[in-house]
């Protein structure tokens, strides 16, 4: 039921709740599909020396799957932390500042991870 209440009290819903829900699930399924690859990656390279790591990362398949995982995770964790902030922080100024920081952090993680993988991948002969 719609009432004029939202017009007089605060701003009402931002109307992107479904989009948020869907993206959270979409990235969750994406990350789950990539989890076996990431486990293989971590188990194989734990404690491995520099040469082995660079050789593994020279593979286009490994690099692409890594980048997809990094971007998927960055989007997923940004949405998740957004909900945590909205749940616990009720002061407008602090909340808005933290929401901005959250986005900055997620973008930075996503870009830094992608940059590192691409730097190791581009220009390397297999």
């Amino acid at each position, binding site marked *: 039921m719609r009432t004029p209440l939202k017009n007089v009290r605060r701003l009402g819903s931002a109307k992107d709740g479904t989009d948020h829900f869907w993206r959270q699930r979409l990235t969750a399924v994406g990350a789950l599909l990539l989890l076996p690859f990431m486990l293989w990656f971590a188990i194989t390279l734990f404690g491995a020396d*520099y040469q082995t790591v660079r050789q593994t990362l020279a593979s286009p398949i490994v690099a692409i799957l890594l980048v997809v995982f990094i971007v998927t995770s960055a989007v997923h964790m940004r949405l998740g932390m957004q909900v945590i902030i909205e749940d616990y922080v009720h002061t407008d100024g602090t909340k808005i500042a933290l929401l901005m920081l959250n986005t900055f952090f997620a973008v930075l993680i996503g870009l830094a991870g992608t940059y590192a993988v691409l730097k190791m991948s581009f220009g390397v002969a297999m």
Partner: protein
Amino acid sequence: MAEAKARELPRIERPLSPHLQVFSPLINMVMSIVHRITGAALYFGSLLLVWWLLAAASGPEQFATVNWFFGTFIGKIILFGYTWALIHHALGGIRHLIWDTGLAFDLKSVDILCWGTIIGSVTLTVLIWAVVLLGGGA
């Protein structure tokens, strides 16, 4: 104009739902809380993966430093915790995806799924680390 006016309106005191402390801890409640905690831990744990990747991209010396750190006792403890958080959050995520379809909301299924999450995550984490440590990776 309209926004400025809305701000001046007093907040209405609404009834609050009871705080968490009044409930006795049931497994589904504990798993819900742990799902959020592991999610937040993975959020900051993403720094570990990016640190490792950037070091590998920077050169052998930088990589050696990071590799040394992860090889120390504290480094391994952190990675063990990171592994568990990842697996636990993943299994918890599967549980939530099942619930998203509207299935498994009866108490027995809820209990099975929740206990399955914690038992599964601990078992898988121990298995993975057994493979890592016995496989000579360390």
